[in-house]
């Protein structure tokens, strides 16, 4: 009655799924990704060059290049917040975002106040959290500043 069906059954009876090669390939892929994967891909860094210690070495011909000093002080009732002020006649909103906007609009070529390599010195107060310090550092770097450093109390 159904010759085609019986022929297909006879042909299909010899087919066997080869699992071993597939597992071999999966095994190799697993090993590859284990070796190639960085297991902490989200951790990145800011680069910072610490100025060298030089005592009594001032170049009399060097132009005065006054750095822009950004102060970060603890704020809020519990001191967990931070407030940013910039020394000088600058009108800056007291947050990391405010600093980023100010610097973005002041740096050449968008603005005309500072060159991108103008020194920016961040001066945190002692109790400010490291997260706030990094947020301010990040704001300056994100705005395009290439010469950002941290001033230590000593």
């Amino acid at each position, binding site marked *: 009655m159904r010759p085609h069906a019986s022929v297909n059954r006879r042909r299909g009876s010899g087919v066997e799924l080869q699992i071993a090669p597939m597992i071999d390939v999966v095994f190799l892929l697993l090993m590859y990704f284990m070796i190639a994967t960085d297991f902490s891909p989200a951790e990145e860094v800011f*680069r910072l*060059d610490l100025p*060298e210690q030089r005592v009594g070495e001032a170049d009399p011909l060097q132009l005065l290049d006054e750095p822009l000093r950004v102060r970060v002080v603890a704020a809020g009732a519990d001191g967990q917040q931070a407030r940013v002020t910039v020394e000088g006649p600058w009108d800056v909103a007291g947050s990391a975002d405010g600093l980023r906007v100010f610097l973005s609009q002041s740096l050449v070529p968008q603005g005309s106040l500072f060159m991108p390599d103008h020194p920016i010195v961040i001066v945190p107060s002692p109790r400010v959290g490291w997260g706030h310090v990094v947020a301010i550092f*990040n704001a300056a770097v994100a705005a395009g500043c290439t010469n950002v450093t941290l001033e230590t109390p000593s």
Partner: protein
Amino acid sequence: MTSLIDVVFLLIVFFVLVSRIVDEDRPRLDLPSPRPPATVVAAIGPRAVISVVPSEANTARYHLAGRYYPADKAGRAAIGSVLTDMLARNARTAIQIRAGRDIPWNVVAPLLDEAREAGTRAALQHPVRVQLAAIRERGV
């Protein structure tokens, strides 16, 4: 053979899941995650990773090269000595500072001074290279 490969495969998956994959040299920390991040991937090369780990009673400890140091003058002096040795062996060593986001600045700042002084003691011909670690949030 198939059964053997199956078992090996399962064992590998088991150990991958169970093993602690994080590098022992880097304690787990709640690192800062600024937005939008302007961080860069750390360059490959010799590094001295100093972690500032929160401790009990609002204190902190430093961690460098598998050892913990107290966050006081003696601890910082010991770290400075280790850094000087590392910089003297390889002047291209970068000093990576990993600090939890709630650590006060006055605990982290002396490490920068120690790094600078270590560079002076090691007679480097260039500024000390420092990396400040932060987290880049996924999808940001």
